[in-house]
């Protein structure tokens, strides 16, 4: 392999990897009025399944979250259901008393396409993780 081929391969690999990673500002807490709740759905970067971006819906809002990104859903206070689906569906019911709620999205091995998993997270653990892993979904 000569130098030019190696450089081209390196460029292609970095472009490919860069294309899969979200670019944006780091995590910042959102302050909402008392009649609203905020649900942070974050997706730590993982190479496996990085090309899949299932639509995540919380209440009336939908977002496709890139690996290494998070999205803050601002929803009316009360019970809200968040779903993500490919050929299987995962669903989380956010309790009505929660003003701030964290969900981690992961992509597992699927038959034709990866299966999305939405894991309700403990606040402390999620805050630490989201600061380390994720930027705001552009």
């Amino acid at each position, binding site marked *: 392999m000569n130098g030019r081929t190696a450089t081209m391969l390196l460029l292609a690999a970095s472009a490919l990897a860069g294309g899969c990673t979200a670019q944006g500002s780091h995590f910042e807490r959102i302050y909402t009025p008392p009649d609203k709740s905020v649900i942070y759905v974050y997706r730590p970067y*993982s190479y*496996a399944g990085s090309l899949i971006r299932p639509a995540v819906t919380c209440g009336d809002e939908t977002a496709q979250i890139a690996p290494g990104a998070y999205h803050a859903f601002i929803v009316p206070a009360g019970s809200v259901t968040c779903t993500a689906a490919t050929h299987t*569906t995962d669903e989380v019911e956010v309790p009505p008393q929660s003003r701030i709620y964290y969900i981690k999205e992961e992509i597992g*091995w*699927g038959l034709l396409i990866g299966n999305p*998993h939405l894991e*309700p997270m403990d606040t402390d653990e999620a805050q630490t993780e989201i600061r380390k892993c994720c930027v705001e979904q552009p």
Partner: protein
Amino acid sequence: MKRGFILAAFLAATAAFGCVVVQPTIAPPAPEAHAAPLPFKGRLADGDPAQLPPSVAMSLSDTSPVSFLYREELTHEDRHSSMAGSALNPLTYAGYPTGEYTVTAFASLSIVEGDKVLGDYTAQAHVSESYNLYAEPTHKELDEAARAAARRQVDQYLYNDRDRLAQQFANSAQTATGAAAGK
């Protein structure tokens, strides 16, 4: 010959395992709890009226001097096999579990009258279910199952304790009547 035999046995074992379909484990239904109204009514001082153990829900009254304080909390623990491991494992395609969801529900109920605690109950229920390539439960289903199991436990505790609760309530009412008569 020996090497051939070992190879044949290995292939046969692989094929046999490949044919085994492992269904996700489903928790057996919990025994029927006794959901009966309490020997007195109470008002809900803390808790969601739509998320109560049936015994408590049947015994609500806004005018009662007795208060119910009910709380539920859920914790989750998910375990996922690595994607590479799952992809390379032939058992994955036969329906072998590729992960597991576990939910623990904690429930606590306090029954108070003024500053007197008539009863204090805590319950804890675990629900876990594995998933595979073809089927998986939703977190919402597991949350509901864990909450229901914790509420059944609270109902059971209340049922087992109903005589003592009735006695406590009667004593408390008697004391209140005595105090009122003494004034």
